[in-house]
Every structure is written in structure tokens, then in C-alpha cells.
């Protein structure tokens, strides 16, 4: 069954879009990532114009993240205070990112920049997570009890001012690292057109050393706001939010997120990290291949209407 998308201006298969939304929603609920880093490339591969894919994807991410976040809220697995501090940095970062994006658009190399950021960030984060979690799984098999948060461990982070207590995360750290992480993620999110969960989740685990069970909910919580901001910015600046496309993705995405959140609860933390690492690395490899192998069609066209509609 085909349906016409009024903003993307093409006709797509309803079931294909529903399947994409559901699958990405499932992964989103499971790993606490918005799923934008999977959804945006998937939509572009299926022929949706990149600008529309990025904006409508962000719209879908809002619903899927809220659906997942509410699940974690019931389990009291969200650190609201940490979420708000990350968000403050994120909002500032996304405005900076939008500004950088506009600058690079003038230089005409946005496609390359997006692909390269995907490959570099997804590639390095994916491999790091995979290596770390595989080691953790090995140690768990040997019967050693390990936790990422080593008590009494003091790094440079603990020397910073503005210390705050984060009860849900059982942390007493400076507010500076979360704000900076939020900001960095916000910049990347605006450039890559994603919520930034795939960077946020590992940053919270490895840099802030938050307990994994709180990480997923907190990440989803702040993604709702970042994705909301991105959607409104894209709608007002570029008119590229396709409501029909977003609705289709949402319908299956929110359901998928619920199943995903339940499935995620059954997995061990290190297994969850290993799976997310494999997925992130997979997307990075797929995009790297596109950059390295000679494309079938060397030419590409972009057009702007010269006569009024």
C-alpha cells in the first residue's frame, strides 16, 4: 500500500515505513538512544530527501523517547536533576551546531561532513563500547563481581568546583562535566540531525560514571527536549518536517519502544552495552563503505524551483 508524503513530495510504501519505525522504536526503548542515528540513514537509503529525513526523524524521536522514558519513570530509573543539567548544555550546543551547519552549507560540503561525523563518532564510540563490554562479559563469566563505578576513585573531575549531589545516580560531582557533555552532544546532534543518545549514553557511563540502569531513562528524558527543539527549528527554518511521515513512524515507533524497554530490562548491563556497541559500529561501517567504494552514480542533482508554485 502506497501513501503520498506531502512535504517529501513522493509516494512510499506504508508497511516499509511502519516496519522501520517499529524496529527503531524497539532499539530506542532498549538502549535509551533516540534512534535518530539509525532512522535518518534508513530513511535516506529509502529515497526520502535528507533534509526531510532529518527533520521528520526528529519528530518521531520525541514520541518514541517519551514512550520509553515513561516506562523508566515508573521504575524510578531517571535522574531528573542530571537530565536537566545535561539539557541546559544541550540546548546551548544545538544552537551552536545549527550555526556551524549553516556555515558549512555555504561551503557546499555538508554531505561529506555528515558522513564523516557519522563514521568517526559512531566508529570510535562503537568500538570502545564493544571492547569494554566484551571484557566485562568475560570477567563476569569468571565470576568476578565488577562495577564501573569504583568507590574511592578520584579523577580530575572531582577537583572541579560547583559540586552537586545527584541522588538517583549516587554521585557527588561538579556540574561542569555534564554541562560540557550536553553541549558537545548538542552541537553534534544539530550537525548530524540526531538526538545524540548514542553519544550521551556512553558519555554518562564512562565519563560521569553513572549507574547503567539510570543512564537509559535519563538519556531518553533529555532527548525528548532536544528532539522537540530540533523539530521546531527545522519546521520554522526549513519547512522540512513531514507530518504524515512522522505519524507513520510514530504509530509503530511508540509501540516498539515499549517492547524494547521491557526487553532491555531483561538483559544484563554489559550485554546491553555490547549490543549497542555492535549496532553503532555496524552503522559506521556501512557509511564508511559508501565513502570508500566508488559509487554507482558519480553525479548527483540538487534543484530549486524558479517558478512560483
Amino acid at each position, binding site marked *: 500500500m502506497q501513501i*503520498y508524503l506531502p*512535504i517529501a513530495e513522493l509516494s512510499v510504501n506504508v508497511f516499509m515505513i511502519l516496519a522501520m519505525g517499529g524496529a527503531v522504536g524497539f532499539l530506542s526503548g532498549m538502549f535509551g538512544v533516540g534512534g535518530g542515528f539509525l532512522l535518518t540513514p534508513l530513511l535516506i537509503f529509502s529515497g526520502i530527501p535528507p533534509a526531510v529525513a532529518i527533520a521528520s526523524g526528529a519528530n518521531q524521536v520525541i514520541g518514541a523517547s*517519551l514512550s520509553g522514558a515513561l516506562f523508566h519513570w515508573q521504575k524510578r530509573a531517571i535522574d531528573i536533576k542530571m537530565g536537566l543539567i545535561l539539557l541546559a548544555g544541550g540546548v546551548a550546543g544545538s544552537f551552536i551546531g545549527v550555526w556551524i551547519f549553516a556555515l558549512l552549507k555555504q561551503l557546499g*560540503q555538508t554531505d561529506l561532513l555528515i558522513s564523516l561525523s557519522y563514521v568517526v563518532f559512531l566508529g570510535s564510540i562503537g568500538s570502545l563500547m564493544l571492547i569494554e563490554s566484551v571484557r566485562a562479559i568475560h570477567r563476569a563469566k569468571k565470576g568476578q563481581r565488577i562495577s564501573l563505578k569504583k568507590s574511592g576513585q578520584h579523577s580530575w573531575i572531582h577537583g572541579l568546583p560547583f559540586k552537586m549531589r545527584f541522588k538517583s545516580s549516587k554521585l557527588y560531582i561538579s556540574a561542569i562535566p555534564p554541562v560540557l557533555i550536553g553541549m558537545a552532544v548538542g552541537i553534534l546532534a544539530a550537525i548530524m540531525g540526531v538526538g545524540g543518545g548514542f553519544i550521551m549514553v556512553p558519555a554518562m557511563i564512562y565519563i560521569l560514571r553513572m549507574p547503567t540502569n539510570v543512564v537509559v531513562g535519563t538519556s531518553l528524558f533529555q532527548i525528548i527536549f532536544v528532539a522537540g527543539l530540533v523539530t521546531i527549528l527545522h519546521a520554522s527554518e526549513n*519547512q522540512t518536517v513531514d507530518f504524515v511521515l*512522522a505519524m507513520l513512524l510514530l504509530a509503530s515507533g511508540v509501540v516498539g519502544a515499549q517492547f524494547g524497554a521491557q526487553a532491555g530490562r531483561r538483559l544484563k548491563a554489559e550485554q546491553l552495552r555490547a549490543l549497542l556497541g555492535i549496532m553503532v559500529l555496524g552503522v559506521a561501517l556501512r557509511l564508511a563503505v559508501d*565513502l570508500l567504494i566508488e559509487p554507482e552514480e*558519480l553525479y548527483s542533482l540538487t534543484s530549486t524551483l524558479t517558478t512560483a508554485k
Partner: protein
Amino acid sequence: MRYSSSLNQSAFRLFAVLCLALLLPRQADAQQLVTDISDPLIKVESTFTGAEILLFGAVEAENMFVRALAKDVVVVVRGPSEDITARRKEKIAGIWMNYGSQTFKDIPSYYAVASTRNIRAIAAPEVLQRYQIGFENLKFVPGKNKNLTGTDEFEKFKKAIIKIKKKDKLFVESSGGVRFLGNTLFRAAIELPAIVTVGSYSADVYLFRDGKLVHVQNSPLYITKSGFERFIFQMAQKTPTTYGIIAVLIALFCGWLAAVVFRKS
């Protein structure tokens, strides 16, 4: 339903054209070409997967004694014009990235030619060029960067546009696409893919006799979004911020609804 009704409409119009052709005064050099389009207003709704427009018409004999022989009909449908930038990827430091580019001004977003036989056999190259009939006779006017004009590079970019547009079915050439039904009546079916640009189109019907253009008839054609699709599109254009906020609120509602439904079950 829609298909059968448009078919009936087409049949009716064909009949009307036929009547008109027969009733027209038989003066020499009087109007020699009468044409009509099956559906001059194409509505793009949620079920839109492309459309077929039927163009039909009648060619009159010059006078009672000369039958309308040795005549050729060429139908050209042009969509709203657009500026196109063609970019080429090149391998730089091991990575395939956009390197060269060329912008062209006012290229039709959609361009279809249907003819009774191969257009090269119908008229001389100069004639086809003058009326921009056929892909290679389209005027490719360079945009900002005029350095490449006349070079091999320029031709390569031009050919790339034609190739990609043909692949997307936005450039269509069909010799034999115009069929005569008897001596005077002809019909042509033109396919529009789902990705056509909305806006005003023009359908030109050229009548050639012995390689000379004897008559041109122009009919406008509109492709417009309608119903829910039109509502969404206009809202996104006219009140973009409100549109964005509503999209966010609805997304939030969907997420909340799913969470509530799943909590109960």
C-alpha cells in the same frame, strides 16, 4: 472508482473533440489542430502514485480534396522550471567526495516528448532545436559558474542531468507515443511519476507536415495537492512555527498514549 470515472470523462471528451472536428468549417488554413487533455487538473492526494494524462485531438485535412496525409504530431509536456546543480564525486585522499559542479538555469522539472515517429525523422535538427523538442535540444543555460561553457566537462554535466532525470522518469521520450486513430484523430498517453513537482505544466501539441511546423496548440495543465495533503503542506509553509509546535505536541501525545496503554495491559 476514480479510475473508471476519469475513463468515462476521457471518453466523453474524446467524443466532444470528434464532434467539434466534424462540425468545424472546412476552410483552407482554418484551424487545423484541435486538442484536449483528459484531466487538466491533477489532484495529489494521499493515494497518489503518479498519474497518466491523456491528450487527444484531431487534425483536419487542408481542404476537401487533400487528405490529411504525411502529417506528424509531437506532444511536449513541460513542468515548472528549476535551477539544477549537478555535482560529481571524485576520489580524493581515498574518499569519494563531491568535487566538480555546474549549475543550470531554468531546466524543466518534468519534460516529456511523445511523437508519431522518431522526432529526428519528423523535422530537421534546427527546427527541433528552435522549439526545444527532444532532450538534446533543451537549452542548458549555465548558472553562476560560466567557466565550463562549451567544454567537454559542461557536456558531461548536461548528460548526467538527462541520464538521472530519465532514470527517475522525469524526462520521457517516446517515439510512437502519439497514435493516430484513423485519419484525423490522434491520442497520446503521458505518464507522470509520483515524484513530480506540483505546479503549472504546459502541454504543447506541434503539427508537422513534410518536416514543416504548421500549427501549435498550447494547453495548460495543473498539478496540485488537495485535501489533507494540501492542508498539511500549506500549514507547513504559512505558519511554520505553529506547525512545528503542533507536530511536537502530537508526537508527545502518541508517546504518552502508548505508555498508558502498555501499563494497563
